[in-house]
């Protein structure tokens, strides 16, 4: 299992809310000024465990250039050729102020075959590699990476319509998509949460200080009693966190998705999909 660390902040700007996380974060991950932060990051997150890159177990899709650095779509896939359940997955943005964007742990309803996918949107602060590291059933680590050109995603004030964006914090939209073929192994689900997901790097115009980090930190997604995944999310996740994922399709059963999310202020939000999809 990966060590439990998440978030996006800098050494220079330690706010109270992130101090506890700082303590949990290995020093090497934030102390390096090297051009390539990955070796230290790898050591901090995975210790001495071997990571195999480019063995076809995982792929990552990201735009070459982030047109909006505050909303960069990322898709991580594990092809159908990979058999067996996945244990965990990490999404790491090397040069973001806090590189670990998300860490997922999968449950039985995530499935053990078929093409598994996770799609989300992240903030990207500068030209950087973005990596997905998947832990397979045998405990081995597999990596794919993509280079993204972006600037300023972490400090960009994301809400374009500031009042509209803050009008309904915690509103959740959860969907289950009907697969084209009823017998297919996996189907798609979607979780959207209205939340500013403040990075702690945005300026408050009144105090001229930084807006405190305030973000969705934990999310649990289930199908009935079965866990699809748990995620620890950091502030590299864009405003209004959005997760599109695959999960086990029950051709004649209950495919409704239930979601519990907790933000850094310890507020809990819940949501669920209708049993049948709204669209296919």
């Amino acid at each position, binding site marked *: 299992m990966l060590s439990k660390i998440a978030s996006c902040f800098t050494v220079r700007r330690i706010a109270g809310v992130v101090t506890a996380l700082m303590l949990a974060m290995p020093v090497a991950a934030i102390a390096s000024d090297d051009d390539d932060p990955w070796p230290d990051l790898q050591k901090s997150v995975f210790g001495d465990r071997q990571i195999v890159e480019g063995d076809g177990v995982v792929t990552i899709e990201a*735009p070459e250039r982030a047109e909006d650095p505050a909303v960069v779509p990322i898709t991580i896939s594990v092809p159908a050729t990979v058999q067996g359940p996945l244990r965990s997955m990490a999404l790491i943005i090397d040069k973001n102020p806090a590189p670990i964007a998300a860490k997922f742990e999968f449950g039985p309803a995530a499935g053990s075959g078929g093409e598994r996918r996770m799609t989300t*949107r992240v903030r990207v602060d500068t030209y950087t590699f973005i990596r997905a590291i998947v832990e397979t059933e045998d405990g081995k680590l597999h990596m794919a990476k993509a280079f993204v050109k972006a600037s300023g995603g972490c400090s960009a*004030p994301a809400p374009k319509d500031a009042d509209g964006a803050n009008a309904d914090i915690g509103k959740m*939209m959860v969907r289950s998509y009907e697969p084209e073929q009823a017998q297919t192994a996996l189907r798609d689900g979607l979780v959207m949460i*209205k939340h500013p997901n403040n990075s702690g790097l945005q*300026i408050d115009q009144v105090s001229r200080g930084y807006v405190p980090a305030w973000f969705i930190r934990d999310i649990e997604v289930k199908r009935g009693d079965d866990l699809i995944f748990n995620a620890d999310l950091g502030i590299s996740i864009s405003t209004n966190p*959005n997760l599109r994922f695959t999960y086990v399709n029950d051709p004649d059963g209950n495919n409704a998705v239930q979601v519990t999310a907790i933000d850094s202020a310890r507020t809990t939000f819940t949501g669920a999909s209708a049993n049948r999809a709204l669209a296919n």
Partner: protein
Amino acid sequence: MVPPARTRNEEAAFGTGPDQEAFSLWPRHRLPGLTRRELLIAGMAISSVPLWGHFPAQAAEPMAFSEIAPGVYVHTGRHELQSADNRGDMSNAGFIVGDDAVAVIDTLGSAQIGADMRAAIKSITDKPIRYVINTHMHPDHVFGNVAFRDDKPEFVAHHKMARGLSARAETYLNNTKSALGEAAFAGTEIVLPTLEVQDKLTLDLGGRELVLEAQPAAHTDNDLIVTDAKTGTMFLGDLLFSEHIPTLDGSLRGWLTVIDKLESSPPARVVPGHGPASMEIPAALADEKRYWQTVAGDVRKLIAEGKTLSDATKTAGQSERGKWEMFDQYHVRNVTAAFAELEWE
């Protein structure tokens, strides 16, 4: 005046030097509907970028303004990204002269280009500049404000403009500095409004009233429409783009609502934030409306089909390619913003 679309190489090809009058070489397609007189009023313009190098402090000749209606002057900027060459002169700005005073509407994108604008105004009228109005928070419309500070005007804007600009101040300044370079950026700082428009505000320039109306979120969440009641001239800021692709930093649905509202009670003429100096509704709005309806329609369809943001950035609105300048620079960003808004419907 900087001829909007010409490069230094083109100038060289035309054989114009800084000592020559160059109005005959203007790219007139940028100034449709202007009379000869209006073109002449615009001045004996030449490039503010001499062939032998950059003189960032000021232009050799006044910046060009067209008098689009009596006492209403507009300067058109280039359709480009910020650069050392254009010094932030990439949007439209104007001023209106009353019996007693002058109101400036937007100030372009740097302290120096703002100073050029101020010098041009002073060459046309010696009435005091009492108001500097910003149509919204974007750097290419507000970074010249500082050049007017010594006039001690009221800086007027939508009541949400200060919040929006302040939140983005660091990013805007850093990005502008790196795009313009130290020399062209020098002196640029943020000047916030001193007079905020909650809903509607009327300014009196002496025998001439300007009506300022705060809009709901559209191009940004702080768009302000300025109407010169005397001539029925409406400065739309970036609620209207022509030739240059529109850019979304507010609400697509809100923008389409504003377009409908404008179509239902059209003024005599409108001034876009990017595009020609003067246009008429409905023709002025046709391209922009078609663009946003196309983007909204495509994005809604993709969302209904269960497609992702990434899918949408590859296909939505691609039928608009070739119809706009700066399409590659802004379209995908527009689709991203549209998707993030419309997926909550």
